[in-house]
Structure formats: structure tokens, C-alpha cells
């Protein structure tokens, strides 16, 4: 059964980004969330390379190779933007000045353990980037990932099997079928796609979960392609 696509997952995460916050979006699906912020929310997107107030991607004729984000995209700046050096950028990240980071993930455990940096690709060199710093330093860590691997294995687990990015840090997970919080009691499902039953969710999840008191359907409006 089809779950949400990448844009729809990013849209859902964007709805939870509060007005007036400073947010770091990881490369891949998370960075798409900046296109789906609800109108009227004034948010600063911080990028690890020191750009605070990243705006939309630059048009081709405006692209400036000195003005990039951490994913090497040429970007624009919003009003009030600042650019700082890497030590200040990571003081912001590690010192608890980022309200939320939204990161791509491979696996999340019910105690909040997080694996998103080493999928054990044979022969490819390791790449950690700023993931460990964000996972430890941001005030809230949200993960976005498909609920299952291509082979169908669950990514929400009792214990991560892949190398950890950080221990006990993830608070919320947006998957292609559900929104799941991580609490002291483990996974709490807040929202679930209407055409997925709780039994089906259980079969596709690698750890026990409970349903939130305000458990409701996961609804995403039609989005522009």
C-alpha cells in the first residue's frame, strides 16, 4: 500500500515547526520541509556551514558559489540573515541554541537511540558531517524516514542495529505512514494513515507501541508536484 511520498512526509514535519524558532534541516527529505511551512510562521533555518536564515534555493542566474548551504545548494538569504564561521555555527548547534533539528534516519529505537550516519555501504568512505552534533545539541530532534526498509524490515526498533549517531535523543519520528513520539514509556503513535490498520502498523514496527490519547488519522492535503 502506498504511503506518503517524500514531499508529503516533509509537509507533515513542517506543520509541527513552531513560529519564531531556529531550525536545522538535514539533507534529503528534511530540507524539503522549508517549502511547506504554514503561512505566517517566522522561522530561521540554520545551516551547519554558518548560514542562519537560509531562504529558498537560488535561481540559476542568481546562484553564487560563495552562498551555499551545508548540502552545497546555492541558496538565498531571508531578511535578518547572518553568516558566521564554523565554530560559532557549531556553538549554536552544540550549545542548545537550535530549537529543532529534523534529520533523515535509518533506524530509531524506542529509547530514542538514533542511527542515521553509517548504513555500512561497502567501500564508500564514512560521512558523519554535523549529524552527531545536531543530535546531541539541538533542543529537539525529529527524524524522518520510511517506516520500513525496501526489504520490508522495520526501522522503528527496540535497539538500533546500525551504528549510532547519538543515544536517547529522538523525540518524534515522521514516517510514510505514521507520526510517532518517543516517551519514557517508548513509542507512542500520534497519527496513522487512514488506510493502515493498527494491526498492520504493529506488523511493520519492530517494537511495542501505544496509541496517544488524541490518536488520529494522518492527513496530508494534495501538494503541488
Amino acid at each position, binding site marked *: 500500500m502506498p504511503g506518503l511520498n517524500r514531499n508529503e512526509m516533509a509537509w507533515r514535519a513542517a506543520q509541527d515547526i513552531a513560529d519564531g524558532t531556529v531550525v536545522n534541516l538535514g539533507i534529503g527529505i528534511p530540507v524539503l520541509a522549508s517549502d511547506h511551512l504554514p503561512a505566517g510562521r517566522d522561522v530561521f533555518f540554520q545551516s551547519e556551514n554558518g548560514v542562519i536564515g537560509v531562504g529558498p534555493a537560488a535561481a540559476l542566474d542568481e546562484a553564487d558559489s560563495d*552562498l551555499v548551504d551545508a548540502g*552545497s545548494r546555492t541558496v538565498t538569504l531571508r531578511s535578518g540573515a547572518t*553568516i558566521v564561521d564554523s565554530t560559532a555555527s*557549531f556553538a549554536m548547534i552544540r550549545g542548545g541554541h537550535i530549537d529543532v533539528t529534523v534529520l533523515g534516519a535509518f533506524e530509531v529505537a524506542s529509547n530514542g537511540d538514533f542511527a542515521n550516519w553509517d548504513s555500512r555501504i561497502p567501500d564508500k568512505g564514512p560521512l*558523519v558531517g554535523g549529524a552527531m552534533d545536531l543530535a*546531541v545539541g539541538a533542543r529537539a530532534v525529529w527524524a524522518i524516514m520510511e517506516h520500513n526498509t525496501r526489504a520490508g524490515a522495520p526501522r522503528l526498533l527496540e535497539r538500533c542495529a546500525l551504528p549510532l549517531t*547519538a*543515544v536517547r535523543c529522538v523525540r518524534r519520528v515522521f514516517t510514510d505512514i505514521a507520526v510517532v513520539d518517543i516517551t519514557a514509556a517508548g513509542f507512542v503513535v500520534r497519527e496513522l494513515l487512514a488506510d493502515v490498520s493498527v494491526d498492520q502498523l504493529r506488523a511493520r514496527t519492530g517494537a511495542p507501541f501505544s496509541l496517544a490519547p488524541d490518536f488520529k488519522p494522518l492527513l496530508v492535503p494534495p501538494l503541488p508536484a
Partner: protein
Amino acid sequence: MAIDKRVASAQAAMEGVRDGAVVFVSGFGGAGFANVLIRALRDHGAKELTLVVNSATHRLSLTHELIANGQVRKVIASAGRGREPGLSVFEQLLKDGKIEFECVPQGTFAERIRAGGAGIPAFYTPVAYGTDLAKGKETRTINGRDCVLEHAISGDLALLRADIADRFGNLVFRHAQVNFGPAMATAARLAVAEVRATQDEPIAPERVQLSGVFIDRVVAVGA
């Protein structure tokens, strides 16, 4: 004699660089790569280098030329993965066990360099605690938080790119060029900046982003 840190060429800026040097290379995401200086270091030919660079093989940086030229013994970076589907030169050498790699979380990377330039020999951070990147490192619980001991990195040469330098070596950066430049300059015995342009008159003090105290040589290389 009047201070003047401007040198005539990138080649001249590499004078005195020795085999075995620890070399910082600034730049991130396409901004601030000192590609003219990197190529000058390749032509200079110093070997057995340790490169301290955010990404071992970014497609817009020329560090791969130093690696392909057999000048690099070890890379310390937060990213060691090429974008291409196949193996980069660096990844091939890594696979063959012909180059050393130390993978460091980017914030710890920046902070270790900052510490190296600020006289701080080591520091504790919670970042990487409980992960493979903390294996073998000292740990300690501070205020209830599990932390890892990380050591400063200092070195011999820093290569950075800025927009404008005056003769005192004071620098102004353009947009996101700044990234690791200031920290790396402080941590290196010889800090060299390539800039779009140099000027005789001093940069206004409040506009200077990196004091010339941290810079030894500047080279004008154009846009």
C-alpha cells in the same frame, strides 16, 4: 620595516612547507576552497601530509589532486565519501589501506581546531558519546551528562580563501567563505590566505572578520 604580508605568488606562499606537515584546508559546500593554494601545494610537492579538511573529496575542492599525487598520508575530516557512484581516489586508497582516515563529527572537528588555536589541549563534549567514533576515548560524566575527551588539533599550515586582505593580513570574507578559515588560521604556525584582491589601505577595523595577527601570508588570485 613596514609590515606587508602580501606575497607575489601562490608558489612563494608555500616556501618552507616541509614533508610531514599537518595542513588545514578551509572550505565547505563550494564556498571558501583555497584551490589556487591547494594546487601550489601540489606543485610544491611536500609529502607525507596530514590533511585536516571538512570533506576529504568535495567535488568543488582540489584536495583530491594532493591525494592522487601521493602527497597525503592521513586525512582528518567529517566526510570521507565521494558523490560519484564509484570510488573516489581517496576511497580507493582507503579501501586499499594506503591512506589513514580519522572521521570526526563536524562540530567536534571545528572545536578541536579552535582549541588548537586557543591554547586548549583537550575538552569534554557529549557529542559522539556511545558511538563508534568515541571508541577508545576517555569518557567522564559531567553534571550528569556522559562526555568524551577530545584533543585539540594544531598544525603547520592553513590554506584559506577570503575576499579582501590588506597588507597587515586583515581579512574580509564573502558570504559563506568564512566557514573553517578563522579557526584553521589560529591553529596553524603558517596561515596563508588567497584572496580576490589585496589593498594598500587598511580595512576599516570594524569590518575585519579575521585579524591579521593570525595570518602570515596573503596572495591575490582574482575572482
